[in-house]
């Protein structure tokens, strides 16, 4: 068995529809303020002008949005972690989760070069564009020499990245890892979800009887993970400890979740097992909670199957009505919420909740935040192609 080191979170960074920074993001979550608005970046009339969580303008105009969101959030997280500019980056790495990476930039290249089939490529591209581009940008900007991995597990990418990054530290591959989740709102994804009839025509209402679909969002979430002893030696504040993680496959359907919640049950149970010596009880669950009929029901079933009689006493929260479903960034933003819940002792609400669904009968913390001590949190994501991921954290 490989050696196993303890892993703590020492920094957070966020870019979301609430603005730049963890501060505005967390405030919007706690105050239950939806940042979803009609899409302004492109004409979305043909999709029924759905609400979405667009990041407000204000970043570095020279960067494309994905790189800009990622680098902004990384800088904030590193600043909070107290890692200085002369930090030792030889043992520092990154795991970035994304659905599409710098797709928009790559699509521009496709438009310029792919359609003229009778001619050779005309427009040079100054660097490769793909899933891994934002990862490489961060690794280059900060001179990282540790693992530089990019994961793409659709909407579970951010949560999967969290687990894989923690594993890199536990195994001794690195002493510090950046966990990033990033996604950009585009016509590509809006049209796709519209075709699947997955977008809400009204408002996002996770776990509510009237829920009729999701609203998309964009942004980036970043967490700095460090080997615990090393972080404490340098005087860093440990915000949370990562206890365990797991992923799973539904083996059921490419878009629809397993109606029995089997896949998510396996991911949660895997994370609990990975935590070792864990008492089995959690005080808060950051749910995927997309607001679609099937996801929310599946999640409820899975949570009840794992936690049995305790399930009804666990606050289960979705922040999707606040910043939208940010796809590859969602798991990282959810993990940030989980860390903040541990630190602040405040559980944010699931907003837009009005009519209970008899089949979704857990404590979703409807509409108002709640103060309560929380020691152990679970963050879950589920995705197209049947991916599920779960991460377990606790007060350090």
């Amino acid at each position, binding site marked *: 068995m490989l050696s196993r080191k303890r892993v703590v979170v020492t920094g957070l960074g966020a870019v979301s529809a609430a603005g730049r920074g963890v501060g505005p993001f967390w405030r919007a979550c706690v105050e239950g303020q939806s940042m979803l608005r009609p899409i302004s970046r492109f004409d979305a009339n043909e999709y029924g002008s759905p609400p979405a969580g667009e990041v407000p303008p204000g970043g570095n105009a020279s960067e494309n949005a994905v790189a800009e969101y990622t680098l902004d959030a990384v800088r904030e997280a590193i600043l909070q972690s107290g890692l200085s500019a002369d930090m030792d980056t030889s043992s520092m790495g990154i795991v970035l989760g994304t659905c599409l990476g710098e797709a928009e930039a790559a699509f521009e290249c496709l438009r310029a070069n792919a359609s003229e089939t009778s001619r050779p490529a005309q427009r040079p591209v100054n660097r490769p564009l793909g899933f891994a581009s934002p990862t490489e940008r961060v690794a280059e900007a900060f001179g990282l020499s540790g693992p530089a991995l*990019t994961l793409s597990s659709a909407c579970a990418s951010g949560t999967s990245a969290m687990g894989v990054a923690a594993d890199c530290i536990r195994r001794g591959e690195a002493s510090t890892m950046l966990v990033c989740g990033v996604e950009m709102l585009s016509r590509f994804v809006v049209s796709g979800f519209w075709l699947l009839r997955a977008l809400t025509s009204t408002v996002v209402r996770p776990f509510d009887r009237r829920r009729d679909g999701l609203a998309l969002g964009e942004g980036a979430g970043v967490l700095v993970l460090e080997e615990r002893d090393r972080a404490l030696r340098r005087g860093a504040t440990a915000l949370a400890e990562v206890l365990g993680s797991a992923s799973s496959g539904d083996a059921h359907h490419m878009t629809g979740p397993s109606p029995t919640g089997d896949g998510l049950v*396996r991911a949660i149970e895997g994370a609990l097992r990975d935590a070792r010596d864990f008492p089995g009880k959690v005080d808060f669950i950051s749910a995927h909670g997309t607001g679609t009929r099937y996801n929310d029901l599946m999640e409820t079933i899975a949570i009840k199957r794992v936690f049995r009689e305790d399930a009804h006493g666990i606050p289960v929260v979705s922040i999707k009505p606040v910043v939208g479903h940010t796809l590859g960034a969602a798991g990282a933003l959810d993990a940030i919420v989980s860390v903040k819940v541990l630190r602040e002792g405040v559980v944010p609400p699931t907003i837009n909740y009005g009519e209970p669904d008899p089949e979704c009968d857990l404590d979703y913390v409807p509409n108002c935040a709640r103060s309560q001590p929380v020691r152990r949190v679970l963050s879950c994501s589920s995705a197209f*192609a049947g991916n599920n991921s779960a991460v377990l954290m606790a007060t350090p």
Partner: protein
Amino acid sequence: MSLIALDPPAAVVSCGLIATRASSTDAVTILDRSHSGSRRMDRYAALGCAAASAALENAGEVRLEQGDPDWGVVLGSSLGCWASNAEFLVDLDDRPTPELSPGLFVRTVANAVNGEICIAHGIGGINHTVVSGWAAGAEAVAEAAALLAEGRARWILTGGVESPDDSLRRVHAAVRLTEDLRWLPETLEEAAAICLVTTGNSLAPADRTRILAYRRGHDPQGRWLLSTALEPSVGTVVVTNSIPPELLRSWREQAGNRRFVYLPAESGELGAAGAPLVLATASRFKGGLSSADRILVIARGIEGGTAALLLDA
């Protein structure tokens, strides 16, 4: 930092390989026509699914239950589903959205290949799709081997899949127009190499190739990885991806009197499938090329993402 040793090592039980320079074969003919779901797959998913099926078939007697949590899928790809993304994008530009295919949109996620393999074989455990460029296949194999060593799965299908289409080859050609990237190969090849891997202590026959150690890192100058990974027992160094000529010269020199194999010269640029292909054929590398004990496989992406696998064939 040197290589991360795997204790116990991971052992390759069986492999499924599909490497072809032909571009006319569609997904349905790659897979058997009776294969569940083959018609909904793009070529990327079909290649991966076919290679996974072949690996399982070659493994002989292995038991798999529906949703089996002891089985996992950890794959790497540089290009992933980009061909489907390009097709959807072109459709989006050319046609009214209501005329577009929702099925095509579903294929625009890189983990579609994992999903199809899980559905086809009932695999319910660990599930990752690594997309970190050309090093992704080696990174995925390393991840799978580490997960096995930690006891988080008993069997993992791991490897790499690449399926470039014409539009992506044209984008690649555009990248080659940049002066400092002219060393990139002219063409990208299509391939899938997936191995069934298990823990090496009890579940695999003793004569199988073993993954002893690994290292993953960002090494844009190519300075540290080879030097820190070269141990005396390494007899063969295999570089699985195209690298700049000056780096190739430097690595050849560092390899000393060891056998040095530059795979792109033999097989073309196989992207993330290159390192898994070497894993699958390691015993042949040893028998045909070197009498030394161990093979060091290095995969490197264009921008410096690098991974090394130490194999005992």
